Protein backbone atom coordinates (compact mmCIF):
# COMPACT_ATOMS: atom_id res chain seq x y z
CA UNK A 1 0.00 0.00 0.00
CA UNK A 2 2.71 2.39 1.06
CA UNK A 3 4.93 1.34 -1.78
CA UNK A 4 2.17 2.00 -4.30
CA UNK A 5 1.40 5.44 -2.86
CA UNK A 6 5.08 6.31 -2.96
CA UNK A 7 5.35 5.12 -6.51
CA UNK A 8 2.46 7.25 -7.70
CA UNK A 9 3.74 10.28 -5.79
CA UNK A 10 7.09 9.74 -7.46
CA UNK A 11 5.41 9.46 -10.84
CA UNK A 12 3.49 12.67 -10.26
CA UNK A 13 6.69 14.49 -9.31
CA UNK A 14 8.34 13.19 -12.45
CA UNK A 15 5.51 14.41 -14.66
CA UNK A 16 5.54 17.78 -12.90
CA UNK A 17 9.22 18.21 -13.69
CA UNK A 18 9.10 16.88 -17.21
CA UNK A 19 6.22 18.66 -18.95
CA UNK A 20 8.53 21.00 -20.90
CA UNK A 21 10.35 17.87 -22.05
CA UNK A 22 7.04 16.37 -23.17
CA UNK A 23 6.32 19.51 -25.19
CA UNK A 24 9.74 19.36 -26.80
CA UNK A 25 9.27 15.71 -27.78
CA UNK A 26 5.89 16.43 -29.38
CA UNK A 27 7.28 19.42 -31.32
CA UNK A 28 10.10 17.21 -32.53
CA UNK A 29 7.69 14.51 -33.65
CA UNK A 30 5.68 17.09 -35.63
CA UNK A 31 8.88 18.18 -37.39
CA UNK A 32 8.81 21.73 -36.02
CA UNK A 33 11.88 23.59 -37.27
CA UNK A 34 11.60 27.29 -36.41
CA UNK A 35 10.95 28.34 -32.81
CA UNK A 36 10.68 32.12 -32.41
CA UNK A 37 10.39 33.28 -28.82
CA UNK A 38 10.31 36.18 -26.44
CA UNK A 39 11.78 34.73 -23.25
CA UNK A 40 9.64 33.89 -20.27
CA UNK A 41 10.61 32.10 -17.08
CA UNK A 42 7.85 29.56 -17.70
CA UNK A 43 9.37 28.69 -21.08
CA UNK A 44 13.00 28.70 -19.97
CA UNK A 45 13.47 24.91 -19.90
CA UNK A 46 11.86 24.48 -23.34
CA UNK A 47 13.89 27.36 -24.83
CA UNK A 48 17.11 25.76 -23.54
CA UNK A 49 16.11 22.47 -25.11
CA UNK A 50 15.34 24.18 -28.45
CA UNK A 51 18.63 26.11 -28.47
CA UNK A 52 20.50 22.87 -27.87
CA UNK A 53 18.63 20.99 -30.60
CA UNK A 54 20.10 20.18 -33.99
CA UNK A 55 16.74 20.05 -35.80
CA UNK A 56 15.14 23.22 -34.39
CA UNK A 57 16.25 26.80 -34.63
CA UNK A 58 15.47 29.05 -31.70
CA UNK A 59 14.95 32.62 -32.87
CA UNK A 60 15.00 35.39 -30.28
CA UNK A 61 12.57 38.21 -31.13
CA UNK A 62 12.36 41.84 -30.07
CA UNK A 63 8.56 41.68 -29.95
CA UNK A 64 6.06 38.84 -30.30
CA UNK A 65 4.38 40.01 -33.51
CA UNK A 66 7.66 39.36 -35.30
CA UNK A 67 7.11 35.69 -34.55
CA UNK A 68 3.72 35.55 -36.26
CA UNK A 69 5.17 37.02 -39.46
CA UNK A 70 8.23 34.77 -39.21
CA UNK A 71 6.05 31.64 -39.00
CA UNK A 72 4.09 32.74 -42.09
CA UNK A 73 7.40 33.06 -43.95
CA UNK A 74 8.60 29.71 -42.61
CA UNK A 75 5.43 28.04 -43.89
CA UNK A 76 5.79 29.73 -47.27
CA UNK A 77 9.26 28.18 -47.36
CA UNK A 78 8.03 24.74 -46.31
CA UNK A 79 8.82 24.65 -42.59
CA UNK A 80 6.65 24.39 -39.50
CA UNK A 81 7.20 26.54 -36.46
CA UNK A 82 5.84 27.40 -33.04
CA UNK A 83 5.82 30.76 -31.24
CA UNK A 84 6.71 30.83 -27.54
CA UNK A 85 5.58 33.83 -25.54
CA UNK A 86 4.03 35.07 -22.32
CA UNK A 87 0.42 36.27 -22.04
CA UNK A 88 1.52 39.93 -22.04
CA UNK A 89 2.93 39.39 -25.55
CA UNK A 90 -0.37 38.30 -27.03
CA UNK A 91 -1.60 41.89 -27.19
CA UNK A 92 1.48 42.81 -29.21
CA UNK A 93 0.42 40.33 -31.90
CA UNK A 94 -3.13 41.38 -32.68
CA UNK A 95 -2.87 42.87 -36.18
CA UNK A 96 -0.26 40.32 -37.23
CA UNK A 97 -2.61 37.49 -36.20
CA UNK A 98 -4.60 38.45 -39.34
CA UNK A 99 -2.01 36.39 -41.20
CA UNK A 100 -3.38 33.17 -39.71
CA UNK A 101 -6.69 33.79 -41.48
CA UNK A 102 -5.40 35.46 -44.62
CA UNK A 103 -2.76 32.78 -45.39
CA UNK A 104 -4.57 29.92 -43.63
CA UNK A 105 -1.23 28.59 -42.42
CA UNK A 106 -0.58 26.20 -39.52
CA UNK A 107 -0.11 28.60 -36.63
CA UNK A 108 0.71 27.24 -33.18
CA UNK A 109 1.68 29.29 -30.16
CA UNK A 110 2.42 28.23 -26.58
CA UNK A 111 1.62 30.94 -24.08
CA UNK A 112 2.73 30.92 -20.46
CA UNK A 113 0.09 32.69 -18.42
CA UNK A 114 0.61 35.54 -15.99
CA UNK A 115 -1.96 37.66 -14.19
CA UNK A 116 -3.90 34.72 -12.72
CA UNK A 117 -3.65 32.13 -9.91
CA UNK A 118 -2.05 34.08 -7.09
CA UNK A 119 -0.38 36.78 -9.21
CA UNK A 120 1.73 39.26 -7.22
CA UNK A 121 2.21 41.86 -9.98
CA UNK A 122 -0.94 43.86 -10.79
CA UNK A 123 0.55 45.02 -14.12
CA UNK A 124 0.21 41.47 -15.44
CA UNK A 125 -3.47 41.17 -14.65
CA UNK A 126 -5.23 43.16 -17.43
CA UNK A 127 -3.54 41.42 -20.36
CA UNK A 128 -3.59 38.05 -18.61
CA UNK A 129 -7.33 38.45 -18.10
CA UNK A 130 -8.03 39.19 -21.76
CA UNK A 131 -5.55 36.77 -23.37
CA UNK A 132 -8.06 34.05 -24.20
CA UNK A 133 -10.70 36.50 -25.47
CA UNK A 134 -8.15 38.30 -27.64
CA UNK A 135 -7.14 35.04 -29.29
CA UNK A 136 -10.75 34.01 -29.82
CA UNK A 137 -11.66 37.38 -31.36
CA UNK A 138 -8.71 36.93 -33.71
CA UNK A 139 -10.01 33.53 -34.82
CA UNK A 140 -7.49 31.43 -32.90
CA UNK A 141 -8.66 28.27 -31.12
CA UNK A 142 -7.63 28.17 -27.47
CA UNK A 143 -6.69 25.08 -25.46
CA UNK A 144 -5.49 25.21 -21.86
CA UNK A 145 -3.35 23.03 -19.63
CA UNK A 146 -3.51 23.60 -15.88
CA UNK A 147 -1.95 20.38 -14.57
CA UNK A 148 1.28 18.65 -15.58
CA UNK A 149 -0.39 15.36 -16.45
CA UNK A 150 -2.68 16.97 -19.06
CA UNK A 151 0.13 18.77 -20.91
CA UNK A 152 1.01 15.92 -23.33
CA UNK A 153 -2.63 15.36 -24.30
CA UNK A 154 -3.36 19.06 -24.83
CA UNK A 155 -0.13 19.58 -26.78
CA UNK A 156 -0.82 16.58 -28.98
CA UNK A 157 -4.31 17.87 -29.79
CA UNK A 158 -3.05 21.40 -30.43
CA UNK A 159 -0.21 20.32 -32.72
CA UNK A 160 -2.50 17.92 -34.59
CA UNK A 161 -5.18 20.49 -35.35
CA UNK A 162 -2.67 23.24 -36.14
CA UNK A 163 -0.41 21.24 -38.46
CA UNK A 164 -2.90 18.74 -39.90
CA UNK A 165 -5.94 21.00 -40.28
CA UNK A 166 -4.30 24.46 -40.53
CA UNK A 167 -6.40 25.50 -37.55
CA UNK A 168 -4.60 28.34 -35.78
CA UNK A 169 -4.24 27.28 -32.16
CA UNK A 170 -2.95 28.74 -28.91
CA UNK A 171 -2.11 26.60 -25.89
CA UNK A 172 -2.35 28.49 -22.63
CA UNK A 173 0.00 27.04 -20.03
CA UNK A 174 -1.66 28.28 -16.88
CA UNK A 175 0.12 29.95 -14.03
CA UNK A 176 -1.09 27.13 -11.81
CA UNK A 177 0.99 24.78 -13.98
CA UNK A 178 4.14 26.87 -14.27
CA UNK A 179 4.03 28.11 -10.70
CA UNK A 180 3.30 31.60 -9.46
CA UNK A 181 6.32 33.87 -9.76
CA UNK A 182 7.75 34.67 -6.36
CA UNK A 183 8.96 38.23 -5.78
CA UNK A 184 11.41 38.68 -2.93
CA UNK A 185 13.24 41.80 -1.87
Amino acid sequence: MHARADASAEQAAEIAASWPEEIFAILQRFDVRQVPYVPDAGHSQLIERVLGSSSMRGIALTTEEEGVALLAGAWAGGQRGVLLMQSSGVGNCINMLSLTQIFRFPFLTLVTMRGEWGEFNPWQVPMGSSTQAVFELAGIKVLRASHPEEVPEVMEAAASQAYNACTPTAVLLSQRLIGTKVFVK
Partner: protein
Amino acid sequence: MSKANLLDRRAVVSSLLANRKGTIAVGGLGASTYDIAAAGDNDRNLYLWGAMGGAVMMGLGLALAQPKLPVVVITGDGEMLMGMGSLATVGLQKPGNLSIIVLDNECYGETGGQLSHTAGPVDLVGIASACGIADARAMTTMAEVEAFAASLADVTAGPRFANVKIDGANLERVLSNRDATFIINRLRGSLGFKPI
Protein backbone atom coordinates in the same frame (compact mmCIF):
# COMPACT_ATOMS: atom_id res chain seq x y z
CA MET B 1 11.84 68.80 -49.65
CA SER B 2 13.20 67.99 -53.10
CA LYS B 3 16.57 66.28 -53.31
CA ALA B 4 18.92 65.44 -56.15
CA ASN B 5 19.72 61.86 -57.17
CA LEU B 6 16.27 60.45 -56.53
CA LEU B 7 15.80 57.19 -58.42
CA ASP B 8 12.67 55.93 -60.11
CA ARG B 9 11.16 53.19 -57.94
CA ARG B 10 9.90 51.08 -60.84
CA ALA B 11 13.32 51.19 -62.53
CA VAL B 12 14.97 50.15 -59.26
CA VAL B 13 12.67 47.16 -58.71
CA SER B 14 12.81 46.09 -62.39
CA SER B 15 16.57 46.09 -62.16
CA LEU B 16 16.56 44.11 -58.89
CA LEU B 17 14.36 41.38 -60.35
CA ALA B 18 15.50 41.35 -64.01
CA ASN B 19 17.74 38.27 -63.65
CA ARG B 20 16.10 36.83 -60.56
CA LYS B 21 16.17 33.12 -61.54
CA GLY B 22 14.82 31.32 -58.45
CA THR B 23 14.77 34.35 -56.17
CA ILE B 24 11.84 34.74 -53.77
CA ALA B 25 10.60 38.35 -53.53
CA VAL B 26 8.57 39.63 -50.57
CA GLY B 27 6.84 42.98 -51.15
CA GLY B 28 5.83 45.30 -48.34
CA LEU B 29 2.25 46.54 -48.45
CA GLY B 30 1.38 49.43 -50.76
CA ALA B 31 3.59 50.79 -53.48
CA SER B 32 6.38 48.21 -53.04
CA THR B 33 3.97 45.41 -53.87
CA TYR B 34 2.75 47.39 -56.93
CA ASP B 35 6.39 47.85 -58.04
CA ILE B 36 7.02 44.10 -57.83
CA ALA B 37 3.81 43.43 -59.77
CA ALA B 38 4.89 45.99 -62.38
CA ALA B 39 8.18 44.14 -62.81
CA GLY B 40 6.20 41.02 -63.74
CA ASP B 41 4.09 38.44 -61.94
CA ASN B 42 6.02 35.43 -60.68
CA ASP B 43 5.18 32.30 -58.67
CA ARG B 44 7.82 33.35 -56.17
CA ASN B 45 6.39 36.78 -55.42
CA LEU B 46 4.89 37.09 -51.95
CA TYR B 47 2.74 40.21 -52.28
CA LEU B 48 1.62 41.76 -49.01
CA TRP B 49 -1.46 43.94 -48.75
CA GLY B 50 -1.34 44.30 -44.96
CA ALA B 51 0.67 43.06 -41.96
CA MET B 52 2.54 46.35 -41.85
CA GLY B 53 5.92 45.88 -40.17
CA GLY B 54 6.05 42.17 -40.98
CA ALA B 55 7.76 42.04 -44.39
CA VAL B 56 11.33 41.54 -43.12
CA MET B 57 10.23 38.83 -40.68
CA MET B 58 8.39 36.95 -43.43
CA GLY B 59 11.57 37.22 -45.47
CA LEU B 60 13.57 35.87 -42.54
CA GLY B 61 11.26 32.86 -42.08
CA LEU B 62 11.56 32.13 -45.81
CA ALA B 63 15.32 32.63 -45.84
CA LEU B 64 15.86 30.23 -42.92
CA ALA B 65 13.58 27.63 -44.51
CA GLN B 66 15.23 27.91 -47.96
CA PRO B 67 18.88 28.71 -47.28
CA LYS B 68 20.02 27.94 -50.82
CA LEU B 69 17.63 30.42 -52.46
CA PRO B 70 18.05 34.18 -52.53
CA VAL B 71 15.24 35.92 -50.64
CA VAL B 72 14.77 39.63 -51.20
CA VAL B 73 12.44 41.86 -49.20
CA ILE B 74 11.43 45.01 -51.05
CA THR B 75 9.58 47.45 -48.85
CA GLY B 76 9.00 51.10 -48.04
CA ASP B 77 10.39 53.37 -45.34
CA GLY B 78 7.11 53.47 -43.39
CA GLU B 79 6.77 49.68 -43.37
CA MET B 80 10.42 49.30 -42.35
CA LEU B 81 10.08 51.84 -39.54
CA MET B 82 7.14 49.87 -38.13
CA GLY B 83 9.23 46.68 -38.01
CA MET B 84 12.57 48.15 -37.01
CA GLY B 85 13.08 45.51 -34.33
CA SER B 86 13.14 42.89 -37.06
CA LEU B 87 16.48 44.31 -38.23
CA ALA B 88 17.88 43.40 -34.81
CA THR B 89 16.44 39.90 -35.17
CA VAL B 90 17.98 39.56 -38.65
CA GLY B 91 21.30 40.86 -37.31
CA LEU B 92 21.26 38.09 -34.72
CA GLN B 93 20.34 35.29 -37.17
CA LYS B 94 22.56 36.48 -40.03
CA PRO B 95 20.96 34.53 -42.89
CA GLY B 96 23.40 34.71 -45.82
CA ASN B 97 20.61 34.53 -48.40
CA LEU B 98 18.46 37.42 -47.15
CA SER B 99 18.58 40.88 -48.70
CA ILE B 100 16.45 43.86 -47.71
CA ILE B 101 15.86 46.89 -49.93
CA VAL B 102 13.98 49.91 -48.67
CA LEU B 103 12.43 52.20 -51.28
CA ASP B 104 12.64 55.38 -49.26
CA ASN B 105 10.42 58.24 -50.42
CA GLU B 106 10.49 59.78 -46.93
CA CYS B 107 6.72 59.74 -46.73
CA TYR B 108 3.55 57.66 -46.45
CA GLY B 109 2.60 57.77 -50.13
CA GLU B 110 -0.52 55.59 -49.81
CA THR B 111 -2.18 57.81 -47.23
CA GLY B 112 -1.60 61.33 -48.46
CA GLY B 113 2.14 61.82 -48.41
CA GLN B 114 2.61 62.59 -44.71
CA LEU B 115 6.32 62.83 -43.91
CA SER B 116 7.98 59.78 -42.36
CA HIS B 117 10.85 59.76 -39.86
CA THR B 118 13.37 59.29 -42.67
CA ALA B 119 12.52 62.81 -43.85
CA GLY B 120 13.93 63.83 -40.50
CA PRO B 121 17.00 62.55 -38.70
CA VAL B 122 16.35 58.80 -38.90
CA ASP B 123 18.94 56.88 -40.90
CA LEU B 124 17.82 53.33 -41.71
CA VAL B 125 21.27 52.35 -43.05
CA GLY B 126 22.81 53.34 -39.72
CA ILE B 127 20.15 51.36 -37.86
CA ALA B 128 20.70 48.24 -40.00
CA SER B 129 24.43 48.56 -39.53
CA ALA B 130 24.10 49.02 -35.77
CA CYS B 131 21.91 45.90 -35.68
CA GLY B 132 24.84 43.85 -36.95
CA ILE B 133 24.00 43.76 -40.66
CA ALA B 134 27.54 44.34 -41.90
CA ASP B 135 26.59 44.91 -45.54
CA ALA B 136 24.37 47.98 -45.12
CA ARG B 137 24.52 50.72 -47.72
CA ALA B 138 22.75 53.68 -49.26
CA MET B 139 22.39 53.51 -53.03
CA THR B 140 22.03 56.63 -55.14
CA THR B 141 22.71 55.44 -58.72
CA MET B 142 21.26 52.75 -60.99
CA ALA B 143 24.77 51.35 -61.42
CA GLU B 144 24.85 50.66 -57.66
CA VAL B 145 21.39 49.06 -57.86
CA GLU B 146 22.54 46.80 -60.72
CA ALA B 147 25.62 45.73 -58.76
CA PHE B 148 23.44 45.03 -55.73
CA ALA B 149 21.02 42.99 -57.88
CA ALA B 150 23.91 40.88 -59.16
CA SER B 151 25.08 40.22 -55.59
CA LEU B 152 21.72 38.72 -54.50
CA ALA B 153 22.62 35.35 -56.05
CA ASP B 154 25.44 34.88 -53.54
CA VAL B 155 23.53 33.22 -50.72
CA THR B 156 26.49 33.15 -48.37
CA ALA B 157 27.37 36.84 -48.20
CA GLY B 158 24.24 38.29 -46.59
CA PRO B 159 22.35 39.55 -44.86
CA ARG B 160 22.39 42.72 -46.91
CA PHE B 161 20.50 45.95 -46.38
CA ALA B 162 20.19 48.76 -48.91
CA ASN B 163 18.31 52.02 -48.69
CA VAL B 164 17.42 53.80 -51.93
CA LYS B 165 16.10 57.33 -51.91
CA ILE B 166 13.38 57.36 -54.54
CA ASP B 167 11.19 59.92 -56.17
CA GLY B 168 8.07 60.46 -54.08
CA ALA B 169 5.74 60.69 -57.05
CA ASN B 170 2.74 58.39 -56.82
CA LEU B 171 2.76 56.16 -59.88
CA GLU B 172 -0.14 54.32 -61.43
CA ARG B 173 -1.04 51.38 -59.20
CA VAL B 174 -0.23 48.01 -60.73
CA LEU B 175 -2.41 45.72 -58.66
CA SER B 176 -1.04 42.29 -57.89
CA ASN B 177 -3.14 39.32 -56.96
CA ARG B 178 -4.39 39.83 -53.40
CA ASP B 179 -5.78 36.42 -52.47
CA ALA B 180 -3.20 35.45 -49.87
CA THR B 181 -3.93 31.71 -49.76
CA PHE B 182 -3.47 31.59 -53.54
CA ILE B 183 -0.23 33.59 -53.33
CA ILE B 184 1.32 31.50 -50.55
CA ASN B 185 0.24 28.15 -51.99
CA ARG B 186 1.51 29.14 -55.42
CA LEU B 187 4.86 30.01 -53.85
CA ARG B 188 4.93 26.75 -51.88
CA GLY B 189 4.04 24.85 -55.04
CA SER B 190 6.97 26.41 -56.89
CA LEU B 191 9.22 25.10 -54.10
CA GLY B 192 7.83 21.59 -54.45
CA PHE B 193 5.38 21.58 -51.50
CA LYS B 194 1.91 20.16 -51.97
CA PRO B 195 -1.28 21.49 -50.35
CA ILE B 196 -2.15 19.76 -47.07
